[in-house]
């Protein structure tokens, strides 16, 4: 318990001390929000779908959480190359506790970055259905963070070099993001797209965050939660297994 807490705290300290990470984690989502939000706004309006900024802001918040969570896996490769990982692996603590502490830490950081972007969205003109919508969106953001941190841990356990990690994760993250309904409505998609988006776990995360924030549900809160919890359990299991197999 102590070990989980101290490793979680370590992630937060790293985050707070790395200003570059904070700024860069906000830059990309803001570009999406401003360029797409205002750029596609008129077209979206003319199609009778209302404000695109309102629609895309939850997608951009989800994207922030996704990217930050997946990239937490690079911390594992960093710790392996710079040796700190050994310190935790010879400590009298089960590896599962080490993995959980790291994953919760990464997930908390991802959640904080998501909240930061949410605040920026509010500043740019995004308005949730009500103020109570913001706490309602938090559990979905937290679930997305845990699901993809665990996946990041699984990848970080298997890849040993720093150069391979961003390539592999981008290869995974981009399709996850573009095929999730973060940028467009799921209603009326052509056949193949409907199946692909439905098979993407992030779709349920986007739906949860968007549903909670602006009340536009596609699947509903219960199916979203169910899918995220199930996929989360699977990925945490996979992450724990990969982590337990690390050999130094």
């Amino acid at each position, binding site marked *: 318990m102590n070990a989980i807490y101290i490793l979680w705290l370590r992630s937060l300290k790293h985050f707070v001390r790395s200003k570059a990470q904070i700024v860069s984690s906000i830059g990309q989502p803001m570009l999406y929000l401003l360029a797409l939000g205002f750029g596609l706004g008129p077209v979206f309006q003319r199609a009778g779908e209302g404000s695109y900024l309102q629609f895309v802001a939850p997608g951009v918040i989800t994207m922030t959480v996704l990217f930050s969570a997946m990239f937490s896996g690079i911390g594992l490769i960093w710790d392996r190359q710079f040796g700190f990982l050994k*310190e935790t*692996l*010879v400590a009298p603590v089960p590896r599962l506790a080490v993995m959980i502490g790291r994953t919760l830490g990464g997930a908390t950081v991802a959640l904080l970055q998501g909240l930061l972007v949410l605040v920026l969205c509010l500043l740019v003109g995004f308005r949730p259905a009500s103020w109570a919508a913001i706490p309602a969106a938090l559990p979905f953001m937290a679930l997305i963070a845990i699901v993809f941190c665990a996946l990041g841990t699984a990848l970080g356990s298997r890849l*040993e070099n720093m150069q391979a990690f961003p390539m592999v994760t981008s290869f995974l993250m981009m399709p996850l993001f573009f095929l999730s309904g973060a940028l467009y409505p799921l209603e009326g998609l052509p056949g193949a797209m409907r199946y692909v988006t439905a098979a993407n776990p992030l779709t349920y995360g986007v739906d949860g965050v968007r549903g909670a924030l602006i009340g536009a549900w596609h699947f509903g809160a219960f199916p979203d939660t169910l899918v995220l919890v199930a996929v989360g359990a699977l990925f945490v299991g996979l992450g724990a297994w990969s982590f337990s197999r690390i050999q130094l």
Partner: protein
Amino acid sequence: MIEVVDLACRFGDFEAVKGISFRVAPGEIFAFLGPNGAGKTTTIKMLTTLLRPTRGSIRIDGLDPSTHPHEVRRRFGIVFQDPSLDIFLTAMENLELHAALYGMPRAGRRERIEMLLRQFELWEKRDQTTQTFSGGMKRRLEIARGFLHTPKVLFLDEPTLGLDPQSRHQLWNHVRAVNQAEGVTVFLTTHYMDEAERVAQRIAVVDHGRIVALGTLAELKEQTGTDSLEAAFLKLTGTTVRDEAASNAENMRQFMKAWRR
């Protein structure tokens, strides 16, 4: 304190450690002296639960690392060959993290951290992140960390690699001081003969995964009929440079590891 019988470790076709046996008494400073690739680090990894032996038995304070890993881990501290500090945390935070990982009781934790930081001359720098530290300071902090949870054994894997003579000298003085004050057993590996000679009570000369001689400095000189440890060492291990062969084996291991993934 440490009892090893017929310990061996094999990586594929390459046997890094080929059946070694030795005992280290409580409170003793014991050195593994050997050229590069002799199997020193592999042995330490097996003693510290990071690697499973292919055969043989290990007892640390009477416990088997493969069946009681956590009890064994609580009983030793280790300083790895390469650095293992968190460079984004301060010296103090690195030690606090270690104390929490080892489940040290809160009472007395602060005092012990302060005592060790003062002893290793890092107290003034306690609130600086360790990325600002010199090589010698990092090493000292790692050794202080190794002693923090009052282990019974401290493993030091080539701790002075890359340090200047002043830092090396100071480091060994610190290690000896804690060894005497707390009765900690120290197991170290090195390929610097002067260090083995100055610090260790008994020395095992290892080569190609075997212990080729074991004893006090005087015994080693007598066995080989030489008048210095260096002469004894060269007589036992020959004058061939094995860097080449050893690093090839290491490369192969790396390659195998990458291939299996």
